């Protein structure tokens, strides 16, 4: 299948866009990293003394990134930019550790997303976080995240990528655990960090394997070696490819590493929006994209694995979203599912389609989370069973939700329609029939659970106890801005009509070999649209009647399946029972026991023997040699005395015993040598 695809791809013209070095705009892109990081440091240290408690600095930093990102985006769209700069920060022989930044179509897309969605989210967060505990630290950590994410995205080498990769993980830990008074939240934060750490073992070893083989950490060198068919790299390509992908699975929360993302919803909603939907979780997809020429060439045997992981995730996680009551959990499982689409697309060789879905998803899913936050802000509950009827009470919130939802469902002409359709078309073109069928099924599920969520939240009667009304302008304006982007972003890439995004994203130092359709595959588009509408219809039929409680609403669900989904396929329990608890409990205790009882037992027994030997040799007074050595000098606490006193003598005697023994050994050694 893969080989067939390659044959097809090879027949296509390699797409190498015209490009420039970007001038001062690209040369100054390092400030994208430095500005947020410096702002974060200032906010954390002195933010409380600023008039707006540090928010203004965070907002300004994001504004800077947003404006700079858009400027780069426009420059790239007009003339194409490929620029790379590295500085050495340490050297070991021929092996250099470097710091630098890449400005090309791929990284610019991410800069823009972080800046634009980030600016909207930071604006919104001012309203959302008003009066919350640790307000200043929140913005400090959030700005730090932006800086760390840009460290990751701008990395010209794999080591810098790891640095950014783990720093966004720390930001994630800090922000998921923002309300750390509650143990559940700090558990969620730990879970996110540790699950990622497990996957990072793959990333780190993968980087070591590849970098040690190529002799360089730079992506350009690795991709060059892959392009020319370096035989040493070819030997480790599949292993290295799998290992890197394991790292990507952790960050992008792919099955079976997905378990941390739903729990990460414990963080404040702006965090869920920017980090756990729009940008941070796409880092894994970004890594595969950055290494795409490697995966489509030398490591092509890894691609079936990538497709399988993506497809399993997109389907299985979409199913769970159907039975959630917490509105943020619905969106979290939806995010997992959409990340599955992106991953599978990358595996299927659809670089542009995968990245395009990443692009549109950032807008509509970022938006949906912010809308959910607006709702939660109004009703003081995450549970849809406390909501209902909000379309009248919160009209702006409602209509922006509708835009985001339709975009996510892939309804024409909103952005998700175009990006999802391109993925489906690529599956179809590449002969990935199974992936195509599952992905189409996933589209039905998406439409279904979003219809359900819409009806439960905004339709029917209000069931909560708080008195919700529309959120303040500072929150609704970012919603409207993102809604506009969610609506129109799809037109950035319409096969056969306008292929701007294809140009932008493939503007890279390496040729991206992939299939570019000449026009929309109307058959696939019709199927995608049809299952979307079918999903809406099914959701409407089942949930339009207002019911009193969540349990009642879902009571028609298939009994066994319902329990399986409610319990998340028992995967979390499996990890807890099979892995975490044994290590934390019996295994750790056993190791400690071996230390205390066995190793120390041997030491103590040897001590007794030495003591016995000492007693025998020197004829000490038994009481005086009592192991406690509770003699006068120590317990009296007179240190000055002690230094002079007899206790030194005791140690000397031990020492003497040892040295006598040693002298015997030396003598023996000399004689027998």
């Amino acid at each position, binding site marked *: 299948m893969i080989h067939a695809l390659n044959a097809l791809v090879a027949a296509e013209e390699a797409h190498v866009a015209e490009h420039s070095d970007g001038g001062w705009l690209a040369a100054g892109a390092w400030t994208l990293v430095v500005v947020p990081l410096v702002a974060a440091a200032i906010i954390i240290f002195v933010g409380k003394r600023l008039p707006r408690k540090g928010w203004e600095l965070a907002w300004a930093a994001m504004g800077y990134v947003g404006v700079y990102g858009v400027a780069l985006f426009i420059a790239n769209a007009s003339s194409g930019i490929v620029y790379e700069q590295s500085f050495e920060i340490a050297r070991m022989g021929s092996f250099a550790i470097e710091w630098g930044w890449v400005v090309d179509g791929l990284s610019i897309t991410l800069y823009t997303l972080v800046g634009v969605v980030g600016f909207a989210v930071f604006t919104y967060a001012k309203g959302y976080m008003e009066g919350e505990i640790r307000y200043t630290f929140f913005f400090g950590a959030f700005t730090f995240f932006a800086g760390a994410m840009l460290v990751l995205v701008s990395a010209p080498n794999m080591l810098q990528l790891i640095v950014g990769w783990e720093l966004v993980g720390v930001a994630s830990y800090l922000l998921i655990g923002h309300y750390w008074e509650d143990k559940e939240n700090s558990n969620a934060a730990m879970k996110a960090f540790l699950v990622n750490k497990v996957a990072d073992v793959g990333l780190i070893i993968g980087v*070591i394997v590849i970098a040690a083989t190529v002799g360089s950490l730079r992506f350009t060198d690795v991709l060059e070696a892959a392009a020319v068919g370096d035989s040493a790299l070819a030997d480790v390509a599949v292993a290295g490819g799998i290992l890197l992908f394991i790292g990507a699975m952790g960050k992008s929360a792919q099955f079976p590493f997905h378990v941390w993302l739903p729990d990460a919803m414990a963080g404040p909603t702006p965090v869920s929006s920017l980090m756990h939907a729009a940008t941070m979780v796409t880092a894994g997809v970004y890594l595969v994209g950055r290494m795409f020429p490697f995966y489509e060439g030398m490591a092509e045997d890894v691609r079936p694995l990538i497709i399988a992981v993506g497809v399993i995730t997109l389907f299985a996680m979409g199913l769970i979203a159907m039975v959630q009551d917490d509105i943020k959990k619905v969106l979290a499982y939806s995010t997992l599912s959409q990340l599955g689409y992106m991953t599978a697309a990358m595996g299927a060789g659809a670089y542009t389609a995968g990245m395009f879905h990443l692009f549109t998803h950032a807008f509509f899913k970022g938006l949906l989370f912010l809308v959910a936050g607006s709702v939660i802000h109004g009703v003081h509950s995450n549970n849809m069973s406390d909501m209902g009827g909000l379309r009248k009470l919160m009209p702006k919130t409602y209509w922006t939700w509708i835009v985001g939802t339709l975009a996510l469902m892939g309804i024409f002409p909103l952005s998700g329609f175009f990006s999802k359709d391109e993925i489906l078309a690529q599956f179809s073109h590449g002969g990935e029939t199974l992936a195509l069928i599952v992905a189409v099924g996933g589209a039905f599920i998406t439409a279904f659970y979003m219809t359900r969520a819409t009806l439960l939240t905004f339709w029917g009667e209000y069931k909560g106890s708080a008195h919700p009304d529309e959120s303040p302008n500072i929150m609704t304006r970012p919603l409207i801005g993102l809604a506009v982007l969610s609506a129109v972003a799809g037109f950035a890439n319409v096969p056969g009509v306008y292929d701007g995004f294809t140009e932008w994203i493939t503007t890279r130092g390496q040729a991206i070999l992939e299939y570019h359709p000449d026009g929309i595959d109307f058959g696939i588009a019709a199927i995608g649209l049809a299952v979307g509408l079918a999903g809406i219809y099914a959701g409407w039929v089942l949930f339009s009647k207002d019911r009193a409680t969540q349990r009642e609403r879902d009571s028609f669900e298939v009994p066994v399946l319902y329990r399986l989904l409610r319990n998340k396929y028992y995967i979390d329990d499996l990890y807890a029972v099979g892995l975490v608890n044994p290590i934390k409990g019996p295994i750790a205790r056993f190791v*400690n026991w071996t*230390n205390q009882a066995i190793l120390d037992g041997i030491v103590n027994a040897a001590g007794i023997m030495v003591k016995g030997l000492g007693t025998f040799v020197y004829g000490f007074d038994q009481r005086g040699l009592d192991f406690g050595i509770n003699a006068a000098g120590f317990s009296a606490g007179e240190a000055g005395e002690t230094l002079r006193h007899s206790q030194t003598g005791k140690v000397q005697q031990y020492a003497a015993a040892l040295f006598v023994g040693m002298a015997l050994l030396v003598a023996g050694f000399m004689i027998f040598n």
Partner: protein
Amino acid sequence: MGWFDSGWGLSLTVFLPLVGAAVVMLIPRAQEQLVKQAALAFALASFAASVLVGFRFDYGVSGFQLDTNLSWISAINSNFHVGVDGISLPMLILSTLITVLAIIYSWNHWPEPHNPKAFLVLILLLATGMAGTFVALDLVLFFIFFELVLLPMYFMIGIWGDRTRIKLAVFNREVETRLYAAIKFFLFTLFGSAFMLLGFIALNARGGSFDIVELSEMGRAGVFAGSFGFWVFAALFIGFAVKVPMWPFHTWLPDAHTAAPTVGSVLLAAILLKLGSYGFIRISLPILPEEAQNWAPAIAILAVIAIIYGSLACLAQTDMKRLIAFSSVGHMGFVMLGIATLTEVGINAAVIGMVAHGVITGMLFFLAGSMQHRYHTREMARLGGNLKLMPILGGMLGFTAMASLGLPGLAGFWGEFMALFGSFNPLDGLSLGVFRTAMVIGAIGTILTAGYMLWMLQKVNLGEPNAEWSGKEFHDVDRYEWFAWAPLLVGIVAIGVFPKIVFGATDGTVEALVRTAFGG
């Protein structure tokens, strides 16, 4: 500056604290302020001398510098030979710095039974021993400095240590923690030193010299090859492995670190452990290069056992200080793994790992000590919500714990990552199977490290404070603590962001070491 470069610089660095100890002894005990000022002055002078050494040092040259070689004990052909190279220089400066910080911290943190005079004399003695070990180029001199460290630490633990009582395995009786820990520390190390000395004497018997430089040349020429080399390496191995400590010689460490007064724990963790790993790099590898290659797989295996074992043991601790103590076992495992690869990358990783562990774990012990000072307990079950009661102290703890778990961008990352990197491609001829397996297991160890560090943070820092602390006033980080800690916190970030601070010194020397000893 000729006089400074020809031995005086190093001698001042090493012996100023010793002079200081003598001066402090002459000051009457009642004049506590003067005692402290004198001790700090000499420690600062020694630190300044070591920094000046760093400035006079030529980073483009790989041999020993600022050296001197004077006839000393001519009867056994032992000389006063001192010098620094790129490997010892970072350790030398670290040791003088930590001494200064320890004295600043002690200013208002006196463990019972008080007596600052005696305490400071011991710290200054330790300083001479530590600095001396890092510059000694003569085995007898090395041994004397190495042992000089022992007694002050023994008294520090035995007198100012933890007074709770513990029940011992096998002995089945209760003893005071400080006494058990002090004696165990002393005897364990002495046991190792005895073997080490045996090895030194044997080297002298065969090579006719105690000079490390001369012996290294002989080692390259194959003078110590064969079973002689094997046994000498074994003897040195025991001496250094106890000090590092490597599994299974580590059991003195959790007891000694936990029982020691705060400053003692800091010095133990930050510097004393490094005497062992430094000994491997300075003595075992260059003098016995062939045996180093024979022993390397075994060292790598013990190193990864230490990583996993130490981390798992951490997960079982209930005492915060003991958890931090046990974490050293795992971290030093990474250092030893780096050394075992016998490559430029691996040994560089070991040196930066030693420096990083010094600043990070030193800082953790400071923090643990200050928390004990305020809460009068180290039981994690009773702590909690520390971040609420003392936000700055808690924030520092969180930051340092993140550094300890090897977060990129902070100091701890380089030693771990580069050690794993070195293990992928160890010296030619070493078993790829062993080292690559070690790499994978070591990498898995980083998960456990993250696990116990975050778990400790959750128990100590997060959540609501325990009811028993309600209504109590807690004083957040004070002035002396700021002064003592700021250099460490800055160092953690600086080395993390710009590792050239260490690699810039070590790289040329390590390259020369690997090339001359192993031809790699």
